[in-house]
């Protein structure tokens, strides 16, 4: 695919525009990702996590070290999120997860969970700690078949039981759905399923080739565009739930037509610190945590047991080197070469690395599936009306 080098876009269709967002890395993130344990009680076919069978818990001292910096960051902004993820957070147990959360002040806690362990006691925990819940489920039992336990048994019934508990306790939850094979009819089916599930918001992730998941994500362009077009139609017919990707595409389109699209991307890239169970810090892409490469090392920018988190972030963002510098050059190449940069902000670091073996490349299959064909699918739908 070829694009104009200077994107003709937001301010005037005939005037070349340079997108101004995503230049360099911000010194203060908007959220951190915490790995309370490497363990997951499930063994999903597409999971990217390398140590999910091992129970390596984060020590409270690591969480305290992170909180020393995060509490200062949070005091300086309206919202700051601590996202417990990357392993099944509930597998850490309530007592331990509560102890890990205890040092934090003025933050919003989020948990991304497979829901299989949710019971009334966990619901009490969520309420007590004011936790926002995201549940991972891919549709009905057949669509969720990739989510299995360590014996290979489907996890669907346990997931549904956990969700039913959330609903009974009136705890709002969002849903994240992985689509492994975008096909005709799937968009309509999925939207109806999630509308009935009771989630207030839905995010749709087309399966990615990353981490230990080497399955190809090179899908047929027409299938993917058709999938997003169908989701657009389903949401328009009944916008009962927030449909993340479609609404974001519409929001971008609205701003592009109004000439304000260049304001949408953050001025600088969020460093997204991921703190692994042992305190090591990986910036920009949580999927890189736990991996090692002959060229790039372990991708870590240090460890919070040896330096403060803000020092680690400052060091990496003030003088980027190694893979981070390469990634920044890749973002600039995206800005220069891709007509979709204003919508996308540049290919994600992990997608570049796991698909292309470097961070300097540009358009990935993830870009095609989840950015380019997304907005093209919405356009396809609009044109057909």
């Amino acid at each position: 695919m070829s694009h104009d080098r200077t994107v003709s876009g937001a301010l005037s269709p005939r005037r070349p525009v340079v997108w101004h967002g995503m230049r360099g890395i911000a010194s203060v993130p908007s959220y951190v990702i915490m790995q309370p344990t490497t363990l997951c009680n499930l063994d999903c076919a597409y999971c990217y996590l390398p140590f999910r069978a091992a129970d390596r818990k984060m020590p409270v001292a690591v969480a305290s070290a992170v909180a020393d910096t995060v509490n200062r960051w949070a005091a300086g902004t309206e919202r700051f999120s601590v996202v417990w993820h990357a392993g099944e957070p509930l597998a850490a147990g309530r007592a331990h997860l509560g102890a890990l959360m205890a040092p934090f002040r003025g933050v919003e806690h989020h948990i991304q969970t497979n829901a299989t362990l949710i019971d009334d006691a966990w619901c009490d925990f969520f309420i007590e700690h004011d936790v926002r819940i995201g549940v991972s489920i891919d549709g009905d039992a057949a669509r969720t078949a990739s989510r299995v336990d360590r014996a290979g048994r489907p996890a669907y019934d346990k997931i549904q039981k956990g969700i039913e508990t959330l609903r009974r306790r009136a705890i709002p939850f969002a849903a994240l759905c992985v689509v492994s094979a975008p096909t005709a009819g799937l968009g309509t089916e999925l939207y109806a399923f999630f509308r009935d599930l009771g989630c207030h918001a839905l995010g749709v992730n087309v399966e990615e080739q990353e981490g230990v998941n080497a399955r190809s994500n090179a899908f047929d362009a027409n299938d993917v565009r058709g999938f997003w077009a169908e989701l657009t139609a389903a949401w328009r017919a009944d916008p009962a739930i927030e449909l993340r990707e479609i609404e974001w595409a519409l929001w971008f389109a609205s701003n592009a037509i109004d000439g304000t699209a260049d304001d949408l991307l953050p001025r600088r890239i969020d460093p997204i610190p991921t703190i692994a169970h042992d305190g090591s810090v990986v910036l920009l892409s949580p999927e890189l945590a736990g991996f090692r490469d002959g060229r790039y090392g372990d991708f870590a920018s240090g460890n919070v047991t040896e330096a403060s988190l803000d020092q680690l972030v400052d060091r990496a963002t003030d003088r980027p080197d190694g893979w981070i510098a390469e990634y920044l050059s890749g973002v600039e190449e995206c800005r220069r070469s891709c007509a979709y940069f204003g919508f996308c902000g540049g290919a994600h670091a992990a997608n570049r690395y796991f698909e292309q073996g470097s961070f300097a490349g540009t358009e990935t299959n993830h870009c095609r599936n989840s950015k380019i064909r997304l907005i093209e699918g919405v356009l396809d739908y609009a044109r057909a009306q």
Partner: protein
Amino acid sequence: MPEPSDPLSERLAAAPGLPTLLAEARATWLARAERAVEAPAATGAAAEHDVDAAREKAPAGRGGEPSVRARPSTPRWRAFEDAFPTFYQFTNRPRG
């Protein structure tokens, strides 16, 4: 269906069905925000921010970046960051 190569915004502006679709989307976002203001308990902390937007305050941007003041015409939508703080590495809160 070939991948188009013409600049994106030109095609957005030229898509015949898009203005109607966007008008409906804005109405949905506005109604959603108004419901959140009326029933904050049902939507968690989102309502607080919708109220802020409704009052046309300037919400602080994420990532330590100053955000642009919300315009009176900005739809008061419920920010996805309530549900997906990791979404696309940036906020989708209304910006003017």
